[in-house]
């Protein structure tokens, strides 16, 4: 049987399980990863000279993290592993990536994209000040550098990560100013029913919250952010919010960890011309897949949080399923019972995630109320007022046109951190539903490349 060339992008839970499944089928996949060590973000590994245990680093998920890391060690010499390699474009049926300053192209029989997610942000006045971090960043500082991002950190936003990171900070002995959740207490029965798809995970979450309270951490729900007080030279000096009861409250803090759950990194799927759909529950534009992780483009498979949020466990199942589907499409025999089991796991994780989206909704309404002088694009300090002015002056509401005229989404992060909120600002200003704003087109390179990068023909 001719050997297959399969490429996997990413070594988080989805990419790792995809690679493992391919290896088990006798395929030697090329595994491209941007980072220096395997693990992705959720099970991100600390530098090799650090000594904290898996238990300290990953808490209740220690076994899962260890299992993935052990899997990597076990398959490492059976995969063509290319760390510190940035996948930056997909065209003419080839993946283009940069390794050590050289851009190379690889064509493949199948490409599995497991690109993961980044934090989803709702701007707050002052969030461009020094000392404001994404929730993921606050977690990375602790997990991979054993640092807290400040002496008194305020956690502001919504989603499971808000409580998880706060509790990790608490356990590590960091100073916490408060945990401020933008979502009101869960009232909707449907949210609870969906969250019960994973009773142990739900229980773990409730325990985290109870643990924070027991240790005297102030938790407020239904909070409206007013302003992060940040000095241009000294950075964060405090935070002002309005409580659910309507009272204005000042929080003394020197850092803010900010985030509203996650957003999938879909740029590579977009460059590969995969079809997208608007998800009304989360306001995300997501690449479409069938229940076996096939994208709309032949030979391209999508898995994990990079296609739609399924969580780390869901990502593991999707990664394995994507690999089985690719193998099957390439004429290799697969275990269909296993594929069916994986599909059921993914379906369960998706139900849980619907519950998460209902319990911790994307606070789209806050974008409408942002003051005109609030920076929406941190890269180039484009304000809500500037975006609104462009919409009104030119009578436009399409995301890419507004980007062209206002530069929102055109900066260094390429819209990763302003895109979701900018769409809501545009929709409110133009008086159209947010799906009519559309989505920012993915642009190559998906991250900035040095001008010195040379193209080599493989």
């Amino acid at each position, binding site marked *: 049987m001719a050997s297959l060339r399969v490429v996997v992008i990413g070594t988080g839970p989805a990419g790792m399980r995809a690679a493992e499944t391919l290896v088990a089928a006798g395929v030697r996949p090329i595994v491209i990863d*941007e*980072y*220096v060590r395997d693990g992705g*973000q959720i099970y991100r590994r*600390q*530098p*090799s*000279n*650090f*000594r*904290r245990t898996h238990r300290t680093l990953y808490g209740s998920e220690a076994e899962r993290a260890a299992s993935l890391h052990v899997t990597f060690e076990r398959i490492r010499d059976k995969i063509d592993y290319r760390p510190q390699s940035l996948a930056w474009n997909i065209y003419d049926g080839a993946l283009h990536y940069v390794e050590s300053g050289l851009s190379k192209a690889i064509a493949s029989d199948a490409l599995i994209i497991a690109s993961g997610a*980044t*934090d989803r942000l709702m701007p707050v006045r002052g969030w*461009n*000040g*020094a*000392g*404001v*971090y*994404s929730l*993921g*960043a606050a977690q*990375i*500082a*602790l997990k991979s*550098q*054993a*640092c*807290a*991002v*400040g*002496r008194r950190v305020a956690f502001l936003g919504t989603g499971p990560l808000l409580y998880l990171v706060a509790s990790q900070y608490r356990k*590590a*002995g*960091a*100073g916490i100013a408060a945990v401020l959740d933008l979502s009101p207490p869960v009232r909707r029965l449907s949210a609870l029913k969906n969250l019960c798809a994973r009773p142990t995970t739900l229980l773990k979450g409730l325990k985290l919250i109870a643990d924070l309270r027991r240790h005297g951490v102030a938790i407020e729900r239904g909070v409206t952010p007013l302003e992060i007080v*940040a*000095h*241009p*030279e*000294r*950075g964060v000096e405090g935070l002002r919010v309005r409580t659910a009861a309507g009272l204005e409250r000042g929080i003394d803090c*020197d*850092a803010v960890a900010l985030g509203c759950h996650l957003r999938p*990194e879909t740029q590579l799927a977009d460059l590969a011309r995969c079809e997208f759909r608007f998800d009304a529950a989360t306001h995300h534009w997501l690449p479409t897949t069938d229940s076996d992780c096939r994208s709309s483009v032949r030979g391209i498979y999508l898995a994990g949080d990079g296609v739609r949020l399924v969580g780390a466990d869901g990502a593991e199942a999707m990664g394995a399923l994507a690999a089985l589907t690719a193998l099957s499409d390439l004429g290799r025999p697969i275990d269909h019972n296993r594929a069916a089991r994986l599909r059921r796991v993914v379906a369960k994780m998706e139900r849980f995630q619907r519950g998460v989206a209902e319990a911790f909704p994307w606070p789209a309404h806050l974008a409408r109320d942002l003051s005109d002088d609030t*920076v929406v694009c*941190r*890269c*180039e*300090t484009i304000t809500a007022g500037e975006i609104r002015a462009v919409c009104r002056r030119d009578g436009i509401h399409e995301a890419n046109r507004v980007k062209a005229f206002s530069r929102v989404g055109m900066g*260094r*992060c390429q819209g*990763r*951190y302003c895109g979701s909120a900018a769409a809501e600002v545009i929709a409110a200003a133009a008086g159209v539903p947010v799906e009519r704003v559309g989505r920012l087109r993915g642009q190559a390179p998906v*991250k*900035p490349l*040095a001008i010195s990068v040379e193209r080599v023909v493989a």
Partner: protein
Amino acid sequence: MPTATSRDLLAYSGRFVRLAEADRHPVEITIDGRRATALRGDTVLTVLLVEGGHVRRSEFGDGVRAGFCLMGACQDCWVWTADGQRIRACTTEIVEGMHILTEPTDSLWPASA
């Protein structure tokens, strides 16, 4: 070449607080011409923020920045090495003798007429 920055004006020693793993091998580096001691395994961003309050100055006039995403996605922590290479502070591990510049110097650009 060292310019007065708010890093010098900060009342406290730095923004980041080391909570564990402090018994690592010290590594000498230079930040904007000043000597600094990092620990092996630190990223450039970590040493900048354990030592001071920020990473760089925003080129859009809104003050200083101290990184944001720490996962190589936001590009808010670009700094330079003395040989002119632009690096992401959050994903670059320090090495002995490294010289970091928090602002690009004119000498990195070809002289204009």
